[in-house]
């Protein structure tokens, strides 16, 4: 379970996240949508304990991330949008290192590493330095590292960026199975088809605030959008006029 209570983040006078409250129960795949700079990544990084909120709190399975960080983080797997990993470690070494951070070692970890590398088709690359990996391979490695300690919640920022269609499909299946077994996934994405196909519930974020939340049908109903597609709904809520202007400029 992930719960955000009045979460606010200020950078100087700039309000990046503005009093967001959200509850993602167990067994739900929740999508966070919004235009660039809306505050999605900042929110996810506060959930992962990387940024400290200016106000409000984050609870992971009942533990406050900033008051009780170690037990809260044991429940979490975080997948960032930019796959920065240690270039000079091999894939297997990196996964072993991450398992160690969660206090895990021994044969069970080795088996888990082999299993994850196999699933993401990285087995033949396991003894190569990460610097030789492509963007997509790094992304797969980071996803593996987030799963290595069998977390209860996964927080993922733009999961599909850089993945080939096969890996993207695989990830969708993994997330779906994860929530069916009682896990919680909160993901941010720009890919509206992905959100529509995968998410049980969504929140649309604009200027650091949630402007709509619920199932896609709920959001349609709330905003009297009839049977509009998620894309139309998204553009309506986040300023579609700008898109039309852009199309005109490019069409000249």
């Amino acid at each position, binding site marked *: 379970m992930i719960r955000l209570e009045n979460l606010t983040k200020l950078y100087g006078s700039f309000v990046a996240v503005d009093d967001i409250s959200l509850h993602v129960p167990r067994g739900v795949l929740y999508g966070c949508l919004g235009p660039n700079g809306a505050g999605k990544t900042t929110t996810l990084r506060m959930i992962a304990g990387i940024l400290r909120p200016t106000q409000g709190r984050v609870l992971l399975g009942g533990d406050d991330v900033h008051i009780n960080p170690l037990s809260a983080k044991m429940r979490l797997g975080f997948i960032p949008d930019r796959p920065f990993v240690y270039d000079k470690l091999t894939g297997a070494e990196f996964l072993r290192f991450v398992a160690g951070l969660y206090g895990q070692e021994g044969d069970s970890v080795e088996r888990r590493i082999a299993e994850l590398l196999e699933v993401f088709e990285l087995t033949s690359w396991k*003894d190569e330095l990460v610097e030789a990996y492509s963007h997509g391979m790094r992304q797969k490695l980071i996803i593996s590292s987030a799963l290595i300690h069998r977390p209860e919640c996964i927080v993922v920022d733009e999961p599909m960026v850089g993945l080939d269609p096969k890996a993207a499909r695989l990830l969708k299946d993994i997330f779906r199975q994860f929530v069916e077994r009682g896990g919680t996934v909160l993901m941010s994405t720009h890919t509206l088809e992905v959100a529509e196909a995968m998410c049980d519930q969504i929140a649309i974020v604009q200027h650091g605030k949630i402007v709509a939340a619920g199932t896609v049908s709920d959001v349609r109903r709330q905003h009297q959008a009839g049977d509009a597609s998620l894309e139309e709904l998204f553009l309506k809520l986040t300023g579609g006029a700008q898109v039309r202007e852009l199309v005109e400029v490019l069409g000249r």
Partner: protein
Amino acid sequence: MKQPSLAHVLQPKWRTALQRLREERASGGTGKLVILAIVGGLFWAGVFGVLYKILKSLRAVEELGPLIPGKILGLILLSFISILVLSNVITALSSFFLAKDLDLLVSAPVDWLRLYLAKLGETLLHSSWMVALMAVPILAAYGVVFKGGVLFALYAIIAIVPMLILPAVLGSAVTLVLVNIFPARRTRDLLSIIALGAAGGVILLFRVIRPEQLARPEGFRNLLDFVILLRGPTSPFLPSEWASQAIMGFLRHELDPFPLVLLWTTAAAFVTLGAVLHRALYAQGFTKAQEGAERFIRGGWWRWTVGSLLGWLPVAKREFVLKDIKLFFRDTTQWSQLILLAVLIVVYLFNIQALPLHRGEPVGFFYVNLVSFLNLGLAGFVLASIAARFIFPAVSLEGRQMWLLRSSPLDLRALLWSKYWVGTVPLLVLGLILTGLTNALLEVTPFMMIMSLATMTGLTLAISALALTFGTLYPQFETENAAQIPTSFGGLVFMMATIALLAGVIVSLWQAVYQYVRAVYEGRPVVIDAWMFLWFGVAAALCTAATIVPLRMARRKMETFEF
């Protein structure tokens, strides 16, 4: 197609530098600037003062006149040029082959000459700025002592600039050739060769020049032999000698344009040849550098050795230490600095060994102990420079991966603990070897040996803690090259804090050591009394405080990091 100007190609670099300055100013950087100016000014004044005194007294020796100062300048410039060649080779590797902007520049329609000149300029600037700054007080001392006047400043610049260009071209060319010879990013092998070359070069340099001769004029049969040595050029084919001749000629008012012409024409010829070589070999070398990195890595070796040794540690700490060691030895920009370290130690021990000390008792005893004691400060300073290179950047280097560490349940104390001991253990071994060997060379008494080793242990623990803490207080998360991190403002503050600690510990210990040396010198029995205990206690307390307080500060700062 009209080619972009060189300034345009370099635009991202200077714009970034300007923006950094603006950001510094906006975030209250004026205070930093003032501190930098004061420390820099004090350092310059110190170097200037010492050299001024030496030159003044040497100039007064009638028979030798400006001969010895000329020789000293030649040696200084020669050491500059050897440092420059080495640092240019290492810098050229990143600026010509590994820098992030290369993909953009190589894929853009920028011609080879502009690319060469831009990257050569970048290499020159990064590897020479420190040497150039160091040259300022030295040349100023020469100018003042020999009454060179205002024009001397301009003349010195004209003489020194080609001396900076030549090693940059040479270093870049050596790197270019090596990258072409060695297959696909085998930088490890490449730098091993540079390491061997550098160590050999330094030893050869000392054997050829024998600088210790200058300190022992009594070793010559007569004054004439000594004067002949002084008059002869140290190394007639080296640009440092030409620059020294040009400068001393101006100062002696015997203006001879030949050395200057030689310097500039050689520099121009070198740039031309460097450009030709670049045109012929760069494309192939760049491609090779981009090809897959070292492929299969057998990480098992570290696991069986260091991993087994650390078996008693909790898994998170053990994995962290292992990770840090692997990253260090696989990152060329980090471990290649060990070459500079090896050269530094060779020179250090060579200097101690060359000291004319054991010539007669009892003066010898006093000086041996004095040198052994002062050596503590010097060795401490060497350790501080090494800590600045290797421990200071430790936290900054985690920058891009901090998302992983902060989102995992890793206790920040464990992180700090690992970083501290990974840096401290090798530093301590080095410190003890350096002190032990120096004391053995000086043949000191067991009292001095034990006191030195104990002090070095305390100092090393404190220096590591200070380096890690200042690296945490002034992190450089966005840097491309680990070697550039210590030259930041935080690095300077760390060095200042360490010098203050060294001064405090040395002054405290001196109270006790002086009593010991005096007792032995006067033939009295040595009594270790309350006074000695008090000062040993003060030194120990200083080291303990300088270890514990900074580490606590580092932890608090780390908790506030945001990414």
